[in-house]
């Protein structure tokens, strides 16, 4: 068997050009399949690790997934807000241990600004219960203090003391600026691999303060006449908040509390359990994921067909080679095994290169994906899925190789000792 394998290898080396193209086709198809799978798992793990220790998230009534996306992942917008009195009702419930209100809607150079309380830095947990840590500086104390995520500090080169102007609304340019109320960076958070890294945190009162004179939705011409000192003297309690993270006294009461919030009479509210909402999000994306996986499986099939094509097209020109092998003692089984081994080698090498390729690409793309989308692929090193993929591709290649092998086997019997070509 070893000598036939070495013959198969020598034969492939003799047809380097077509063999390399076939291997490339298999490698690319395997890389695509594994890339899709790893990105999918990375996204799931990344999303799953974004929030922990929060029992409920409460917002204005919309959809579970929508509330989860805008409150935790800073994706999309809230369609409505919760009034402050309703938030107070929520905060003061007996079954509620703690609440962290958040207010979204402004941005800075494309990064979201989130108004919240200092409790956020204690209560917000990610991964397996990790707390936010300050790499430099301190939490916001003054009205116009800002604490920025690690990615913002890195990509914009911001340091402590850096002044920043918020933009009214979301977007990189073209929107009105709150340039009359500049903030100052007082803290930079350690990287978390979550949307926190791409968030500017300010106090809820600061959000109210920068919107003094914006009650109609745009800036009042008189807004600039209101000095900072005047603003500081105002009651800056917000009128609304976008959502609130909630921790309960007892996790056992989560369903009852959720039902009571959902049926609150004074205001249409929605309470979601983060894990359940995330599961619903995966249900929504599962269709697209399955479609992507199906497409990548078809691409693998195309790669495998290229093995068949490559060997089948070489069969006729190799009839004399088969005759020589037969004349020198090769049995029909040897001829069969030779061609099956060639197909298996092409498939296996292609699959191994595909696995190696996808890991190289992911290693290069990982910082970018983590920075842009919070997707961490760090834990997706070569694993069982890669091993099974190599095994499956090699197995199917061997099976595919059986067709040209059978043809060559039949021909080697019919051709006899010598072929007059």
């Amino acid at each position, binding site marked *: 068997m070893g*000598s*036939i394998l070495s*013959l198969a290898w*020598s*034969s492939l*080396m*003799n047809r380097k050009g077509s063999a390399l193209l076939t291997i490339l086709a298999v490698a690319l198809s395997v890389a695509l399949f594994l890339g899709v799978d790893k990105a999918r798992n990375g996204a799931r793990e990344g999303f799953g690790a974004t929030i922990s220790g929060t029992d409920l998230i409460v917002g204005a009534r919309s959809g579970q997934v929508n509330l989860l996306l805008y409150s935790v992942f800073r994706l999309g917008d809230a369609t409505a807000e919760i009034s402050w009195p309703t938030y107070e009702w929520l905060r003061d419930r007996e079954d509620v241990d703690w609440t962290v209100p958040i207010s979204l809607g402004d941005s800075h150079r494309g990064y979201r600004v989130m108004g919240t309380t200092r409790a956020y830095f204690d209560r917000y947990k990610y991964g397996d219960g990790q707390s936010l840590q300050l790499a430099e500086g301190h939490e916001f104390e003054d009205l116009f203090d800002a604490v920025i995520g690690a990615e913002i500090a890195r990509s914009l080169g911001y340091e402590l003391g850096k002044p920043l102007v918020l933009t009214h609304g979301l977007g990189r340019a073209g929107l009105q600026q709150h340039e009359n109320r500049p903030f100052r960076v007082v803290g930079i958070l350690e990287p978390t691999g979550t949307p926190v890294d791409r968030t500017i945190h300010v106090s809820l009162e600061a959000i109210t303060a920068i919107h003094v004179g914006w009650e109609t939705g745009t800036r009042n011409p008189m807004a600039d006449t209101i000095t900072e000192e005047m603003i500081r003297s105002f009651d800056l309690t917000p009128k609304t908040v976008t959502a609130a993270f909630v921790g309960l006294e007892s996790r056992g009461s989560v369903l009852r509390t959720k039902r009571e919030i959902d049926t609150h009479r004074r205001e249409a509210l929605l309470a979601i359990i983060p894990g359940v909402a995330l599961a619903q999000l995966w249900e929504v994306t599962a269709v697209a994921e399955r479609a992507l996986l199906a497409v990548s499986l078809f691409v693998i099939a195309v790669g495998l067909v290229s093995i068949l094509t490559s060997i089948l097209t070489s069969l006729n020109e190799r009839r*004399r*080679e088969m*005759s*020589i*092998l*037969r*004349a*020198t*003692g*090769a*049995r*029909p089984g*040897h001829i069969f095994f030779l061609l099956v081994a060639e197909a298996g080698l092409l498939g296996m090498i292609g699959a191994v290169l595909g696995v190696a390729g996808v890991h190289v690409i992911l290693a290069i793309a990982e910082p970018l994906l983590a920075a842009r989308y919070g997707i961490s692929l760090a834990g997706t090193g070569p694993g069982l899925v890669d091993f099974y993929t190599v095994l499956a591709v090699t197995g199917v290649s061997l099976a595919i190789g059986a067709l040209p092998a059978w043809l060559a086997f039949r021909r080697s*019997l019919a051709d*006899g*000792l*010598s072929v007059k070509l």
Partner: protein
Amino acid sequence: MKGSAIAIEGLRFAWTRDAPALLDINRFELARGERLFLRGPSGSGKSTLLGLIAGVLEPQAGQIEVLGHDMSALSSARRDRVRADHLGVIFQLFNLVPYLSVVSNVTLPVRFSKARRRAAGGDAGAEARRLLARLGLEDDEILSRRVMDLSVGQQQRVAAARALIGGPGLVIADEPTSALDADTRDRFIELLTDEARRSGAALLFVSHDAALAPHFDRGIDLADINASAHRLETA
């Protein structure tokens, strides 16, 4: 019969059941160690006869014994085994596997036969080089060339070394000199017959060229032993 390299009795072969017999040989014998020249024009059934002797074709009737093995009574797998262990084959042209080195081409039979691997000794590569040197191919520069870059004469000598490695009892050669010029042809036949004599192998050399007969112990015409040849001629 027991002392024969090849012994054929009552052989009848046709490509299909209804076709007229291409070969109808009442009796044919090649002694062990004998070097026989078998002449026949193109299309007379020479290569078919070699296929039958080598066990890749099966006759409709008759008995073919090769070195004491009744090929017509053996299973296909056993015939393959006998061929691998006891036969060396040289073709007319394109004798070599293009992707193997000169030495690897010579050691091909050793890959498929334990008996020939044992006979070739522990180092098949060294035995291949020894045979190639005896056939006049000892220059490292020649041995390092791609086999398809060798001249036709050199390729045939590599094929001869391959047929002889592992000491097969029978070497069959199917028109191996038809592409060679007269000088190269004669030198090739001398080298081949010398090496066959040295190793004790019987040699069945098939060609359409009657002028080659003097190089061998004995020469016969296929038409003289094949009854079908006369019927085909008179038909």
